[in-house]
């Protein structure tokens, strides 16, 4: 499979419930780069990630992939980490992860990913007993169990403890080092300097893009 080299959004617009969230939004992320999406609550960070994943239809504009498998949409090459953790409480931690690995066509043993996120000893425990932070870690394990070139992370560090934040920084770094593309919506620091920042402003639907190695 050809390597995905760039993901761009051209003139994207999105409205929710009749209200324009953003318009004329452009971005372009090369492989190995991270785009940080910032903005106040309600500025459209989550909407933008859902548009890229194909879970929301953009009101205008399009997404362009360069390289990669032409048969696949951006969403089919992406992992989307949303606010919810898609975890079934009556299945064990291992069963939950094995299902997502199989659905996304991964082949590695689930134990590898679980050990990496620090849940190795909990593989046989029903997911009902996980704390919020542990559920988040299980969701992160999903990203590792089946490799995909694009990661769309919506406030990935929520509920994570300090060690969890460091873990997140490490797996994000490894993903970028493998040549992955990373788009993260965040308020705080993620421990990695983003190649670009996209600032969404709810009062002024003309987003401001800056390319910087700055301020994290």
């Amino acid at each position, binding site marked *: 499979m050809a390597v995905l080299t760039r993901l761009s959004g051209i003139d994207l617009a999105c409205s*929710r419930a009749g209200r324009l969230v953003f318009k004329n939004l452009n971005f372009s992320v090369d492989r190995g780069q991270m785009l940080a999406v910032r903005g106040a609550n309600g500025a459209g960070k989550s909407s933008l990630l*859902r548009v890229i*994943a*194909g*879970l*929301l*239809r953009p009101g205008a504009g399009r997404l362009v992939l360069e390289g990669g498998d032409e048969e*696949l949409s951006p*969403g*089919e090459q*992406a*992992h*989307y980490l*949303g*606010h*919810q*953790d*898609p*975890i*079934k*409480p*009556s*299945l064990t931690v291992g*069963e939950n992860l*094995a*299902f*997502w690995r*199989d*659905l*996304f*066509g991964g082949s590695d043993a689930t134990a590898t990913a679980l050990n990496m996120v620090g849940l190795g000893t909990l593989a046989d425990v029903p997911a009902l007993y996980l704390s919020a932070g542990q559920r988040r870690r299980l969701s992160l394990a999903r990203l590792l169990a089946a490799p995909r070139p694009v990661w769309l992370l919506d406030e990935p560090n929520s509920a994570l403890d300090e060690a969890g934040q460091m873990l997140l920084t490490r797996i994000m770094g490894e993903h970028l080092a493998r040549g992955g593309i990373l788009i993260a919506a965040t308020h705080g620091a993620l421990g990695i300097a983003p190649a670009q920042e996209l600032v969404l402003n709810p009062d002024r639907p003309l987003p401001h893009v800056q390319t910087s190695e700055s301020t994290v």
Partner: protein
Amino acid sequence: MSPLFALLRRDLKLAVRAGGGAAIGVLFFLIVVTLAAFAIGPDLALLARIGPAILWLGALLSTLLGFDRLLSLDYEDGSLDQMLLARVPLELALCMKVLAHWASAELPLIIATPLLGVLLNVDPVGSAAVALTMLVGTPALTFIGLIGAALTVSLRRGGLLLAVLVLPFNIPVLIFGVAASTAALSGLSFAAPLGILLAISLVSAVIGPVAVAVALRQGMD
């Protein structure tokens, strides 16, 4: 493991684990049939005559209990989002969900039917006819339920609305299911109503997943 088989296996596992609700339908079926027998009284001839209709009605009402779990649980915890990102056609994924739901919630009803037929003094031939017509007709109920589940997926606790939405569309299945069963008892042609029932199931199996996949893709916002 192939993605579709993984989905089927997960849904079957969820159905039989704690809180999965696989047994609820059968218990409800038992209660409805028992209540009907009490309400009608010990007139064995009357029970035998209307028994197939009571069995069908009981099974129809029992199927309603499970539909609100069919999609809404996956919607609420974000699993449905992830399924849209998988490299499998959503239509086939929905067929897997329907298959798992049918096997865990409706197959037990069909198996219980001959036993409950005894409670209603239904002739063994009649019970077998009801079970056979259910085998042919319940797929239609499930696919119609899937459409209802998709329409109410974004409503929290939309189960009651779902039942009200779905029931009118189950009328043809009920009519031909009972017609085939009573035809078998009275020696009339069994094949014609059964054939129509089969046709309803096949049409809903073709239209249901496609329509629901379109609805889910359009309605994600």
